[in-house]
Every structure is written in structure tokens, then in C-alpha cells.
């Protein structure tokens, strides 16, 4: 019975539950969520591949032509790759509600735009 006061105080308060699909809390500043590539800045240095604890990043090609395959299913969202990237090509987005229907959808392929004339 030691909680009776608290019970009645709560009767007057609004519930603290967040009704998730209808109410959403804004992710905090600096949340670690899905990362994304600004592929034009990527120099293919392989640093992100090396530090990634879950081996989520695969790199195709070398140097300036490198393309990134990012497997969200293996990503731990640690943000280590964002910290390590020398050209700041990797950045964190605020997407944290990540739902996929198949494993194939989880792999995001960052392609370079074909520059006309240069190839």
C-alpha cells in the first residue's frame, strides 16, 4: 500500500507511452543510424571496409572508380566508418526505422554516375 499516493497522482497525469506509429520522437542530434555514401567523394581507400566490425561494406573496383555495396543487414550502426572516412564521403542519416521484405533489399549499391565523354 506504500504506493497509493503515487497511483492517484498518476491517475491525473497523461500516460508516458508513446503511441509509436502515430507519435514519433525525433531522433537525437548525432543519432547513429543508417549510413549513406556520397559516392562522388569516395576515393576507394578501403579504410571503411577495414574498420567495419560486421563486414557490412563491400567495395567494387579500385580508387576513384570504386563502388560501394552496403549491407544494412550486417550493419551495427556503430558509425566507425563515418569517423574514419578521410574525404567525408560517408555520412549518417536519421533513418532508423529500417524494414525490408527480403535480404536483397538490404543491400544498397552506391553507383557512380556515368560521366559522358570521360570514359
Amino acid at each position, binding site marked *: 500500500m506504500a*504506493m497509493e499516493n503515487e497511483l492517484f497522482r498518476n491517475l491525473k497525469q497523461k500516460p508516458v507511452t508513446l503511441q509509436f506509429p502515430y507519435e514519433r520522437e525525433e531522433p537525437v542530434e548525432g543519432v547513429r543510424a543508417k549510413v549513406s555514401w556520397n559516392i562522388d567523394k569516395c576515393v576507394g581507400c578501403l579504410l571503411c571496409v577495414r574498420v*567495419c*566490425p560486421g563486414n557490412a561494406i563491400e567495395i567494387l573496383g579500385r580508387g576513384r572508380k570504386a563502388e560501394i555495396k552496403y549491407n544494412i543487414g550486417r550493419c551495427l550502426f556503430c558509425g*566507425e566508418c563515418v569517423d574514419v572516412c578521410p574525404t567525408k564521403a560517408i555520412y549518417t542519416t536519421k533513418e532508423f526505422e529500417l524494414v525490408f521484405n527480403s535480404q536483397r533489399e538490404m543491400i544498397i549499391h552506391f553507383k557512380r554516375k556515368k560521366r559522358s565523354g570521360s570514359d
Partner: protein
Amino acid sequence: MSFEIPFGPQHPALEESINFMFEIEEERVVSVKPRLGYVHRGIEKIAESRNYQQLVYLSERICGICSFAHALCYSQAVEQLLGLEVPERARFIRTIVAEMERIQNHYLWLGLTAKEMGFETLFMYAWRDRETIIRMLDMISGKRVHYGMSTIGGVRRDITEPMIKRIEKSLDHLEVRAEYYTKVCTKDPLILRRTVGVGILRPREARALCAVGPTARASGIARDVRADEPYAAYGEVPFRVVTYRGCDVASRTYVRIDEIKESIKIIRYALKNLPEGPIRIKVPTRVPEGEVISRVEAPRGENLHFLKSNGTDKPERWKIRAPTLANLLSLCKMLIGVNLADVPVVIAGIDPCIACAERIAIVDVNMRKLKVWNGEDLWRYANEWYQKRYGR
């Protein structure tokens, strides 16, 4: 009449899979046989194929609740191998986050224990208040559970001035709540009936069975790595090792609630005396040969990591001893003679974290019998089963 009752691997009172085989005589437990091995992940084996930088995150995933304690323990081990001196500010931030994790864990524990006692309201309140501290951790680190704060050579994120203000505000709230829970747990007759004198572990037994953490401290043994072997900034922060002499679940409750208050004091002190400077230093990827042992007081007790390196960028052997494994024998001792109704409370009393205790062994043990099924296989299997049963 005596009969055997399986407790687990799936049971509402257990958050994780462990099996206790109880022999019951008129609702009284006569013998206990624990059986681990339902949540193997083979972390120690995986570790041999990952480099040191990646292992920080693997170590974090040993446990969902005391993740920072494991990451900190591992980072300290590697730093010892490298002979690094961590910057002053990083050590203080580590202390702050470790203590915040302790608060978070103890509130979680309070809620769970209340739930095992059938006290749903206290469970809801404790977890509601836990949300406050989780938000603070979220604000500092950007994540709610696996903070990813500790790394080799320091911490990854700094605590800024506005953050300090918000943390202090939340600490005030948490302190009020901790006082309130002390009142509830010492006054409420029903909680007292369910906890006092339940699950006795005498100091002698606790010593012989090598109990650690709050379990040992509730039996009057002042065993705390933070005091015995100061790591991070614990050498510079004044604090008290909380002990109670009740040896029962009630004492374990008081130890934890008092530790919340103590942690709040530690955080306040550390925030006030936060030194300026860098938070991280550069580290080489190759680690010289050697063997080190690192110990950390996780919220549940002593955490021990043994690390042996062979001069490459991957460790030779990484041994983890999580607090629950150390407390498991004490738990079995406590359970004998206990009423069946008190079993969940006693089990919750040591704050078990099964995944921590058995991170070892090898990937999927059922691989031999079961294939990995996707949804379609499962659907087909279910249909066949029903056809067989109903003859359609």
C-alpha cells in the same frame, strides 16, 4: 510427493534461455540442476578471426545491458598491451558512462524483480524512470543500448556543456525516484514479505562459491573492482562501496538502490571535475605480443577479460568471464529450500544475464538437425503437418 519441474528454457520469469531442473517437494525446492547452452554465439571463437578494432564492437555485443562494461574491459586490455595512457578526459567520460549504465541496469533490475513478485505497477514505474537515463545515454552516444562509446585509446564522443546541464537535471529526477523506491521497498509490507529472508546466501558460502558484484555485497562482502583495483577515473572519484548484511533478496534490492544513489553522486562529481583535453589518441593497428588481464566492475559484478596477442592484428585468445557465470553456483545454493513461488524472485536476485555467461562455444548447435528455414519452408512444413493431422 516430489516431482520435477522444468524451469526454462522458455519461461516468463526468465529474460533469457536457461534451464533449471527443480525437484519440488510440496512447493519446496530440494535440488537444482542448471543447464546452460541455449544462447551460444561462439564469441571467443569468432574473436580469433577479427582484428582489434572490430572486436570493440563484438565485445559490446556480449551483453545488451552491460555493453559498456564489456567494451571498456576489452579496450583497457588492448590499451595495456599497447602500453597506452588514455587521456584524462576520456577516463572521466568512461566513468560517467559506466555509472550511467549502472543506474540503467539497476532500474531495469528493480522493475524485473517487481514483475517476478507480481508487482506490475512497480515494474512499469521503474522502467518508466529508466527511460530518463536511457535518453541521456542516447544523447551522449547516439544510441540507446549499444553505446559504442568506448574504443581503444579513449572514447568516441565528447560530453558538451549543454549535455552536462541536461544530465544534471535528469540526475535530480532520478535521485528523487531512487529515494522513493527506497521508501517503497523498505515500507511496503508485501514486498518485504516476498524479499526478507528469501534466498539466503551466507557470507561463508558467498566466499567459497566466489560470488561477485551486488550478490556478494548483499552478503556483507565488500568486493568491488572499482575500489580494489581502480580503473578509468575511479581512483580520483570518492565513493562508497555499498554493503548490506541481510544476505537475502531484500538486501540485494537495497544494495542496488543505494548503488543508484552512489552512482548519481559519482556522475555529479565527475561532471563537475571533468578535465579539459583530448578524448582519444591514435593507436597502432598491430599489437605487440603479450598477455594481459583486465577487470571491470560491471553492474552485475566483476568482469574479467584475458587477452593474449601474438603480434598480428588479431588476438590469439580472448577469454571473457561475465559476472553471471560467477554467480550461478551461488544462485543454485540460494535456491535450495526456497518455496517455488519465490524461485523467480531469487533468480532475478542475482540479475542473471545468460547470454553473457555463455558467450563461448560454437555457432549454431542445432545446425545438425535443423536447416535454416525461410518463411516458405516453414509454411510448407506447417501445411504438411496439418494435412497429416486432419487428413485433408
